[in-house]
């Protein structure tokens, strides 16, 4: 990324004279402003902040526990376990949708509104617009992750309590250390989440349809879950984008292990690079004349 960031107060003429296009930073800022003003992004972020609290309240109404998810059996005994159980739950069903809601729409929306010509002929080239939109979609994905992590940890500690956490090997972890580990565990979801962001960006560019851009990554995520659920070959499973979502288990062991985390990071980066490269090539070659 070449960011020769000029002073923000560049006049239109001098900017045009400089390169015929504005900086990535300005395009990025504009994309963020657009996102902030969409009801959808606000609703998703709000839901991520409130959802975990509602979940805990609903959970308190019944004495059964969601044992099928790791840490589900401890949701009433430790707030940290609740945060980890919700991480496992989000990884299975929510993460692809949460990021695709913005990333799957961010390119296709310009097709939908017929505004490609407008934004490209202003002062930004395709590379700048592409970079800015991808960065905006990734920013939103990370904001969602941060909101969810903070809300689940908050809901767990405030409504259940900060009792010691069981490790995945059956030893108690002190509350202070547990809080750090829970935060780190949520952090490991960032790379695979950005992988789904890149996938949604690619679908948004390829299909030119916001609906398909949002739905396709979710369906792909579900198919990957199905493959895992049906006990598909480990060789293929290691290459799926949903597998790295489980790599935090190693952090919670008495003797932590990082092999799956490292492997999952490479897989996630692979998805990000390939999906963004395809999306960029397609967008760069597209014949944008009709508007």
């Amino acid at each position, binding site marked *: 990324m070449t960011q020769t960031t000029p002073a923000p107060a560049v006049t239109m003429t001098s900017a045009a004279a400089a390169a015929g296009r504005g900086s990535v930073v300005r395009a990025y800022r504009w994309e963020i402003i657009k996102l902030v003003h969409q009801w959808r992004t606000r609703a998703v972020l709000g839901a991520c902040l409130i959802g975990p609290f509602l979940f805990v309240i609903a959970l308190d109404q019944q004495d059964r526990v969601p*044992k099928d998810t790791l840490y589900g059996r401890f949701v009433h005994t430790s707030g940290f376990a609740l945060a980890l159980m919700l991480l496992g739950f989000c990884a299975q069903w929510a993460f692809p949708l949460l990021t695709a809601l913005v990333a799957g729409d961010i390119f296709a929306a310009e097709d939908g509104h017929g505004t490609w010509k407008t934004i490209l002929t202003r002062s930004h080239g395709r590379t700048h617009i*592409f970079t800015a939109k991808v960065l905006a979609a990734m920013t939103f994905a990370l904001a969602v992750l941060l909101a969810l992590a903070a809300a689940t940890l908050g809901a767990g500690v405030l409504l259940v309590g900060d009792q010691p956490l069981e490790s*995945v*090997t*059956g030893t108690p972890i002190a509350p202070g250390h547990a809080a750090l580990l829970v935060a780190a565990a949520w952090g490991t979801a960032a790379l695979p989440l950005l992988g789904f962001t890149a996938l949604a960006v690619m679908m948004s560019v390829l299909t030119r349809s916001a609906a398909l851009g949002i739905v396709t990554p979710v369906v792909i995520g579900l198919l990957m879950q199905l493959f895992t659920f049906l006990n598909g070959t480990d060789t293929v499973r290691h290459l799926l984008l949903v597998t790295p979502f489980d790599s935090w288990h190693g952090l919670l062991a008495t003797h932590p*292990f990082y*092999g799956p985390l490292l492997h999952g990071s490479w897989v996630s980066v692979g998805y990000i690079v390939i999906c963004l490269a395809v999306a960029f090539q397609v967008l760069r070659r597209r014949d944008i004349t009709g508007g």
Partner: protein
Amino acid sequence: MTIPTATTPASSGTVPVTGPQAPTRPRRLLLAGTVAAAAAVLAACGSADVTRPRLEASLAQVFPNYYVQQQALLGHPGLAPAAVQARPTCHRGSGPTASDTGAGSDWICVVDYLDGAGKAQEGKFELKVNPNACYTAGAPTKLVGAATIQTPTGRWVTNPVFEFDGCFDPTR
């Protein structure tokens, strides 16, 4: 991020190129992707994540930890996990089709261990092993008691060893 930008074609001597149209680039990308995927497949080939040695090593570590917790609840604190000396022997399925690898809810582990009083015990554990190298183990009720147990003070609590989860490293 190394996104290839529109570079000038190498042989731009005669034909003025008006647009980004070198068809080699996506093909090269596709090729690179295929090679990378194939390499990854080959590298990971033949390695099942859930294996008998990994499962046995994990259960030998996790079961004593929960057993010690249960003994403490029952009024016998101070038992060390190492003193339990758990030695599991695990098999998946039964009969000639037993493979001893892979995820499934048909893993059976026979565990020899020393109980809180130092007496040798043997119990059959049923394990549901997930592909992600985590499992849920169900312990034999006649050895470890029911889902809830009564503490010496008369309080009913969840029996930590009746059913417990464990995870192991699938890469080592």
